[in-house]
């Protein structure tokens, strides 16, 4: 399974970015391959409008099964994501990516 996290950095210890549309990075963990990769989304700082759908498109291209984030995505992003079939898990806003992964595995998110 591929799990994506919205993060403020590029490592397991990076804090989760509670925002979806304006998250700085995505951390993608491929459980089968035990591989961690990152997607740089910092260019979104320069986007005035429509950050949500744009970031949703970027996430969609990674084809993850699950997204772990802080707050739920806003209206437009949620519409895009609902069609993608990606499972959205919220409530990890105050954790690091690693903590969020562990909490998810234990069914605590």
């Amino acid at each position: 399974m591929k799990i994506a996290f919205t993060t403020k950095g590029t490592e397991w210890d990076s804090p989760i970015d509670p925002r979806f549309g304006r998250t700085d990075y995505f951390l993608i963990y491929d459980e089968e391959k035990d591989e961690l990769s990152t997607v740089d989304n910092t260019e979104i700082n320069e986007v005035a409008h429509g950050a949500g759908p744009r970031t949703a498109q970027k996430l969609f291209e990674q084809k993850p099964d699950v997204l772990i984030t802080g707050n739920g995505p806003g209206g437009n992003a949620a519409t895009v994501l609902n069609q993608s079939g990606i499972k959205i898990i919220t409530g990890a806003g105050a954790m690091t990516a690693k903590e969020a992964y562990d909490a998810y595995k234990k069914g605590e998110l």
Partner: protein
Amino acid sequence: MKEIVVISGKGGTGKTSITAAFAMLAGRNAVIADCDVDAADMHLLLQPDYARSEDFYSGFKAKIDQNLCIKCGKCKQVCRFDAVQKIDDSYNIINLDCEGCAYCAEICPVKAIQMVEQNVGKWYISQIKSEAQMVHARLGIGADNSGKLVAKVKKEAKNISQETGKDYILVDGSPGIGCPVVSSLSGANYVIVVTEPTLSGFHDMKRVFELIQNFKLPSGCIINKQDVNAEISEKIVEFCTTNKIDIISKLPYDETFSEAMTQGKTIIEFDEENLKNILKDSWSKILLLTDTH
């Protein structure tokens, strides 16, 4: 560090007056972020010193280099916004009409059109009269508030609060449910909706609540001018109870708000006890709710 965001849906419900009062109650323990940039008014009450300022760039507009232009008129043909005007023999962009789509720049056979990033205003870091730091912005005429600007203001406020070890960021969000509001809610820990018992007040509150639900954020409601329409006031309370929105407080219609405002004061600094006490209780309640969620 927790982020408390105040929004209203409808404009004119008293959101900024109430947020400014909370800013005074929070004292030096909070960083204030004014994200209601279209009609930024909080500075009137909090008197920032504009200590640091920086230009804000957002969006692009087309610019024709007259020395390169061969006057073929293709830009005028393709522009969907009628932003290209032929004056005498030269083609010019009307800045207010240009939407920055770059179609003209793409189609120009001699590459005479550049897309230029626009300086649309300034953002500031100030000290306000409570000695707290405030991040705020001022836009030029015709410039619009955006998620980008709100994200910028909130990011600076976050940096300051981290550097100086503050517990709270208090955000004055903008009315409506558009892009700037989405951006102001994003990353929040607790949302306060200031509403009023009018048809439009209730209607807009319901719409903005849809947005809050999307973000799965805990929220509370302040009903301002609650005695203006008892029936709608009751409906708002019902709506809050059904949707698990905390009812923080109800404020009476009181012209003291405007009297204080004309003197450039928040209600906290004004010689009046009733409103002040309600607001003090409200703020304690909000801190408690924010910390327990």
